[in-house]
């Protein structure tokens, strides 16, 4: 930094920035706070910021009423499963494109990206019918498969941009040292790319966790992940603000924390390396 800003100016900026930050964050804060209120106080007017009786009853109630953890577990299996399968398919593909680029590489990359732009609703009907006819509707396998395909282009792209930063000479050195292709990828490339692979994994778990088109349309009670489970609270069968908040808090907390950790890679991943 060339100059230190004056303290007064810094104080003013601090005030404004914190105000903006807290305003943007407020709905999340309010949801978490409400989840600890007794149901009656959750809808009390004026809203209670501190003068309420802290309770954990909503959390136990959510689990008892709807078998919350089943849906939580569905979310984990679907998001992590689809990401891991995506990585297994994408690592070799990204290796090819990053280290043995040919004339077609660019086109393949662009084409992969273009599949991502296929609007989901355009293929909703056939996927739905295929799922119904194969008996996979409302199964976790189906969602793992669909989300793998949805996120595969992003995984390939992210890995590609990370792999490209690894000097090809190191892989050539491994080849000279007698490493087979398998050892080259397993012992040299993968360990070197661990930070990149980890952030790819994180970002894709986040995207899959929050995916709310396929999960809503292809699942029912059995395999519904949290996105679909929470949506069931929209039916106006009474106002359960506190329970809704408890369910929401549990649904977003793990991913919010993961997201905060991966914020640096987020930009790069979501812009396909166009902004670093």
């Amino acid at each position, binding site marked *: 930094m060339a100059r230190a800003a004056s303290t007064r100016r810094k104080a003013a900026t601090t005030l404004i920035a914190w105000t903006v930050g807290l305003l943007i964050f407020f709905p999340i804060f309010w949801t978490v706070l409400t989840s600890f209120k007794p149901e009656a106080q959750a809808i009390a007017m004026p809203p209670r910021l501190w003068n309420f009786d802290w309770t954990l009853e909503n959390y136990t109630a959510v689990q008892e009423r709807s078998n919350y953890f089943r849906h939580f577990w569905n979310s984990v299996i679907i998001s992590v499963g689809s990401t891991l399968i995506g990585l297994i398919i994408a690592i070799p593909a990204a290796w090819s494109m990053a280290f043995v680029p040919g004339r077609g590489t660019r086109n393949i990359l662009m084409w992969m990206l273009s599949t991502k732009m296929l609007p989901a609703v355009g293929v909703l009907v056939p996927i739905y019918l295929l799922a119904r006819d194969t008996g996979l509707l409302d199964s976790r396998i189906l969602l793992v498969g669909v989300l793998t395909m949805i996120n595969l282009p992003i995984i390939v792209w992210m890995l590609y941009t990370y792999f490209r930063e690894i*000097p090809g*000479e*190191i892989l050539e050195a491994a080849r000279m040292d007698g490493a087979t292709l398998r050892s080259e990828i397993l012992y040299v490339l993968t*360990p070197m790319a661990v930070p990149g692979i980890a952030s790819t994994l994180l970002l894709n778990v986040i995207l899959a966790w929050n995916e709310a088109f396929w999960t809503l349309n292809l699942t029912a009670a059995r395999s519904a992940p949290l996105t679909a489970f929470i949506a069931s609270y929209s039916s106006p069968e009474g106002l359960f603000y506190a329970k809704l908040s408890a369910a929401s808090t549990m649904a977003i907390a793990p991913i919010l924390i993961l997201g905060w950790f991966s914020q640096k890679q987020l930009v790069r991943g979501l812009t396909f390396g166009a902004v670093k």
Partner: protein
Amino acid sequence: MGRIMLENVTKRFGDVEVIPPLDLDINDGEFVVFVGPSGCGKSTLLRLIAGLEDTSGGRILIDGKDATDLAPAKRGLAMVFQSYALYPHMSVRKNIAFPMRMAGIPQDEQNRRIEAAAKALNLTAYLDRRPGQLSGGQRQRVAIGRAIVREPSAFLFDEPLSNLDAALRVGMRLEISELHNRLKTTMVYVTHDQVEAMTMADKIVVLQAGRIEQVGSPMELYKAPKNLFVAGFIGSPKMNLLTGAVAAQHGAATIGVRPEHIHVSPTGGAWKGRVGVSEHLGSDTFFYVEDTGLAETITVRAGGDLELYHGDTVWLTPDPARIHRFDDQGLRIA
């Protein structure tokens, strides 16, 4: 054993022929340096020998066996890369062990070779560090260590010193030369630096645009450059190349005189001129002499104690026995 023969080897990238048909013979135990300006194909040639690129034609023989289509690892060669290409996630020990691990050499044999290499290269204290914690020179030695333990039939070096600072470069140059004297293994070394070529090589291969301009010992190249390119490339400062009337006097299109073969006198000689820039190094002095009546500025190398400065009048006399003559094709006239 490490005899490498290239027969009619060519390389094309698409329609571009980077290496026209080329023959070369590298004898066992020889230190051969490929030298040339950037883009002359010297690195490509090395990578062809290593097997990191396919040849577009011709054959590569290693110890008499056809290795043209052999995978890099099967050729029994070890390579030291420009960026060292150390595995950043492995300790120095594991880096050096990697090729042996790939070859399935028993653990105690691995350890023995690692210890020996570390001792020879002064790396014993660093064996458990990661490459990121080492200096440039140390990384270089690790890369060499990784090459040595394979006991290859030949070492390939791809501009290994270009990432080091000037002082370290001189030191590493000596170490590599000593290594060669000790191991007596074939070494093929690529550089764009003619000083490295002159100081290290048994045999220099001067390349330009994928073609071999001349092959010979350093002194052969220095004393009898085959053509203008080699004449200008080998030697520092560069040979003075003069055309026109002076050249015609010697029955040539161009004549060349090395700066160290011109006698400087403040009192009298063949060509009278004025000192433009003078560089006093202490041991030597370089004068760039203008207004000699010749088209070119003449570079002269003189003793360190000759005190002439900008604007002084000097007389230059070339050593007639060491004038190189070239015809209008740029080829040496014997």
